[in-house]
Each structure stands twice: as structure tokens, then as C-alpha cells.
């Protein structure tokens, strides 16, 4: 499923992220293949707030739509 389909308090594993610069920036923040994270907050049609390794990261809706995850 896509990251923007996640619900609050659900934990998940990342399956794939987009290529290119956005992907590289995502890796630096901890979002990469096989990383585990938890959704802290979900704004409807808005950003997804994640907790990865104690780090809070906000991912915009359109980017979250391009990230594949599994629960």
C-alpha cells in the first residue's frame, strides 16, 4: 500500500521510495528500503507525520503517494 494510506499509530516497513534527489534526501532522513517506522499523525489530504528511530519527519501527501509500504 502507499504511505498516504496509513493510519495514526500504525507501524509499517518501507518497501520502495522514488529515485533521484528526493529519494536521496529521504534516505538521509531515515526513509529507505526496509526501514521501520510509525505513523504519529495523519492530516487528511495533507502530510503524514512519521516517527523513524526517534526522529519526527513530515512527508507531504504527493510524496507519500509515491512511497510503497507494508504493515
Amino acid at each position: 500500500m502507499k504511505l498516504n494510506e496509513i493510519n495514526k499509530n500504525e507501524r509499517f516497513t518501507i518497501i520502495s521510495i522514488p529515485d533521484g534527489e528526493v529519494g536521496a534526501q529521504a534516505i538521509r532522513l531515515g526513509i529507505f528500503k526496509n526501514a521501520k517506522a510509525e505513523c504519529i499523525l495523519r492530516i487528511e489530504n495533507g502530510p503524514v507525520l512519521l516517527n523513524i528511530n526517534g526522529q519526527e519527519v513530515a512527508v507531504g501527501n504527493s510524496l507519500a503517494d509515491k512511497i510503497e509500504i507494508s504493515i
Partner: protein
Amino acid sequence: MFNKSENNFTIVFAGNPNVGKSVVFNAFTGMYAEVSNFAGTTVEITAGKWRGKTVIDTPGVYGISGFNDEELAARDVIIGGDIIVNVVDAVHLSRDLFLTRQLIDMGKRVIVCLNMMDEAERLDIEINVNLLSKRLGVPVISVSALKKRGISALMEAIPSASCGRIMPSLAPAFKKYENIAKTQTDALLLMEDDPQTLKKYSQSASGLREKIYAERRRLADSLACGVTERQSKKADFSERLGRLLLRPVFGFPALILCLIAIFWFVGYIAAQLVADFTRGVIMEGFYRPFIVDIISGFIPSGTFWNDLFAGEFGMLTMTPICVLGLLAPLVAAFYLMLSFLEDSGYIPRIAVLLDRSLSKIGLNGRAIIPLILGFGCVTAATVSTRLLSTRREKVIATALLGITIPCSAQIGIIIGALTPLGFTYCAIYVFTISAVFVLTGTALNRILPGGSSDLLIELPRMRLPSAANVLKKTYSKTKSFISEAAGVFLIGSVILTVLNRTGGLDFIINAAEPVVSGILGLPREAAYSFVMGILRRDFGVAGLSDIAMSPKQTLVAMTSLTLFVPCIASVLVIFKERSKTEAIAIWLSSFVFAFLIGGLLAYVL
């Protein structure tokens, strides 16, 4: 930039954003630090001296990959550094160690300053510093910069900075580039597909970047995990507050309260109370008569040269009086608020809150930064649009800034003029300007091809800012703003004096009068404000307070002037940042909107 002599040993501070790097830096350099712009960008590099050595601070970055101006600047400064002090946040070790690993892989001499130890203690996080130091291969010193603990230990340990252990999987790749790259740093940059380095060595991209990053990320995570023990997992107040501010239900009211506080502080305290004193009492009361006397002692009054220096638009009268008497308190107040917000960690949360709304006008949450800056100074805000990723977003943000956002120079007078008129008039003003904002943004979003870029930001912990750091930031930003403004004002003085003496100014105003009174229904004297408003926004609105106008006329005047063309300084920056077509389109649109909307208001009310 600054001169780096060959004997000058350079210590460079590097680290992620929000790790308290500047506080540690300040502990080394004290009050005397020089701020300069990196190679024609807006990125500020601060340099100072410590025990005879040059100490340079770099902007907070997540990595040295050249994804934006900050990273490019940081990278170049780091490459030239002899010792790198890597400031790391003990509470976010895993995130921060990515950069640490990259610095070590670059082959630089590194010493890690493990900051925020007091916060870590409060959160029951224990870090095995010796083990971390052993695994990295570089010295690690625990520090709590805000509490001033550990700084002297850090200073004593600087000479022991060493080249750490590089990531094992990189060894074969380094071997491959051994004969090609001149330094280990260059070799790493080549491996990571850095465009500039690839060009320098005429190499093609290896496509290894993502793999290297993913591995480095995993290594950083396992390093952090291996040395950290977190006893309790309870979310503390700071975390709860941070999350609360993100939920629209609490977040929006909080944001509105925040904006009201800013406008009150800048628009009332600074623009009215303080400015009345600095401009009215000190500058107009003492300074002007004083300087006019002195100049008239050398040059007869009434002549061109006397006018140029001490006349109404004189270089020694208008310029210092406006810049120091009016602008300085306003801009200082604005930057004080902004620095406080930045250091508290609130701004990324505003970006998240507004991301959904901003994407409807083609921007993402990060655009909130230039927009907020615009309320301080549209010129500075226009330059800051560089932080937006795509050209499309920069155009939209610049247009919105130029057409709708009132800068601090205007806000004070506008608030002063509209508040006595009562709530309804203020509401109509806010509504009209907001409507133009939304319509312009939506229209541009439809017209310009492409889409908005994605929001991807890290949310730092909410903290109570350090007063010293906020004041230092405010001082340095205000100082650079004032020096630039002074330049523009001096030129303005010359132009206006010449125009005034040749009758050119009267000619322009006479030509403008029918337009101003015909379309906007304002008294003919108001034309003066519009003409002056082309040069500086505050000239425009300031003159209006002396003209008798009905409430409806005041509203029309304030609305029109807000929408009217940006000041000369902004126009110059817009032309510099954008293409000629875009810049002219923005200028013309604001000209047209000012009269169109103003005229509409005059007709409807």
C-alpha cells in the same frame, strides 16, 4: 569571502540543523564574529577567531550533497577546513550520525561534540560515549552548550581531532579512485555522483549514490542503537506540544495567535511606540535641525548641494532619519520575533500545517518561510525564495510577495491607520488582501505548467530559545539589512532631490493626481504617497497620515498601497532573481491590481 592565508589553521563547525551548533560556536568566538555571504548566495557564513585560529560556522545541513545552496556552501567550507567540529544532537544521534559518517568518509580530521546532553538526561537517554568514540575512530566530547557544560573539555580536545574509520564497504571503491582523485574527499564526492567533482575530473556518474547513502544510513542507525540506552519511552511536554501544534484544530488558532502577537509587536510596539521616539523625538527633534545647521554653515541653503545633503530628501537627512529612526526598530522587532520562532522549532510545524492549503496555490509548506519573511521585508523574502525547489514555485512565491504582502515598514502605519476605524474596516482590509492572495496564487497555479514539489522535512524538538542566541541573530540580521537599505536610500535621496529641484517630481505627481482621485476617490494630495511608494513603501504610507481622509478613503488608500508595486529594492531583486518577462509581469500586475481593487472598493463601499 574572507581571506584564508596559508598559515591560517581553520576549524570548521558542521552539523545538522537545530543541534545548537551556533551556541557552541559562540562559546568559541564570543561576540566578535564576521558574517559574510557565500559566493553570491544568500547563505551566510559566520567566521571568528579562537586562540589565534580561524573558526568558521556552516549552515545546518543533513549531508554534504549539494542539493541546495546551504549544502554547497557547507561543503566548500568543510573541504577547506583543517579540523571539523561536528556538533551532534544527543537526542537524535541516529539522524545526526549520517553527516558524521560522511565527514569521516571524506577523510577530514573530525571531533564530535555531543550536544544537548542535558535534554538527553531529562529523557533518560544514556549514551556510551567511549564506545561511540571507539567505533567512529574520532574523539567524542559530551557538552551541554546551553548550560555551558563541557565546553572547556571540548576546547582542550580540539588538537586530538583525528581521521576516523571509513565505512568498510567503501574500501574497494576508494581503491578504484586512488589514481584518479587527488584527495580522499574528491574520491568520495566522485563516488557520490557530485556533479561539480565529476566535471572536474571528467568522470561520469557511477549511480552508486543511493546505495552508499542507504548503507551509511544503516550504519548510522546501528551505531546509534549500539551506544544508546533509552530507559523510558514517555513523550515529554516538548513532544506533546510539538504534536499538538500540528493538528489543525489546535494548530490554526495557535498560528493566528502567533501572527497577532507578531503584528502587535512589530506594528504597534516597534512601529508606533519605539519609532515615534526614535524618529520623532531623536531624529526629527534633535538630529535634523542639528545637521541642517551644520550643512547650511558650509553651503548656502536653497542651493542644489544644500538640498542634496540636508534638504527634504537629503542624503544626510532623509536617509539616516528613515533608516535609523524608522526602519531600524521595525526590522529589529521583526527579526527578533523571527529568530525566536526559528529557534523554538515552530516554523517547520507551520509548514506542515499549511502544506495542504499551500499546495492548492502550487506551493508546498516550505514556502511559508519566504511568505513570513515578507512581512518583515519583501526584498529579503524574495531572495529567500531560492530555498524553494522548482522555478515554478519561485515565480508563484515571488509574485505573491510582490503583489500582496505588506512589509514591516507598511504594517505599522497600516495598523495605526485602520485600527481606529473599527473592526469592520480592518476585516474588509484583511479579507480583500487575502482574496487577492488566494486568487493570484490559484490563477498562477493553473496558468503555469507543472506541479508543486513534495514536502519532506524533519521536525526538530520544540525548545525554549536561548536569549543570547536570539539576540545575536537579531543583531546580525538587522545590521546587514540596515547596511543594504542605507545604500538604496542614498541613491533614492539623489534621485528624489534631482527630481524635486527640476520640477520632475511635481510633474509626476500632477500626472498621477487625476488617476488617484478619479479611480480611487482619494484627495489629490494622496498622489504624492503613491509616487513616493514606488521608491520606498514606508514613504508611501507615511505621508497619508497627514492628509484628512474619511474612513472609507483610508481603507481604499491602505488597500491600494499594499497592492501597489514593490519598493525599488524589491524590484531590483525581482529582476535579478527572475526572468525579465516574469519581473515585468509581476510589476505591471501589482500596478493594475492596486488601482483595480482599490477602485472596486471605492465604488462598492
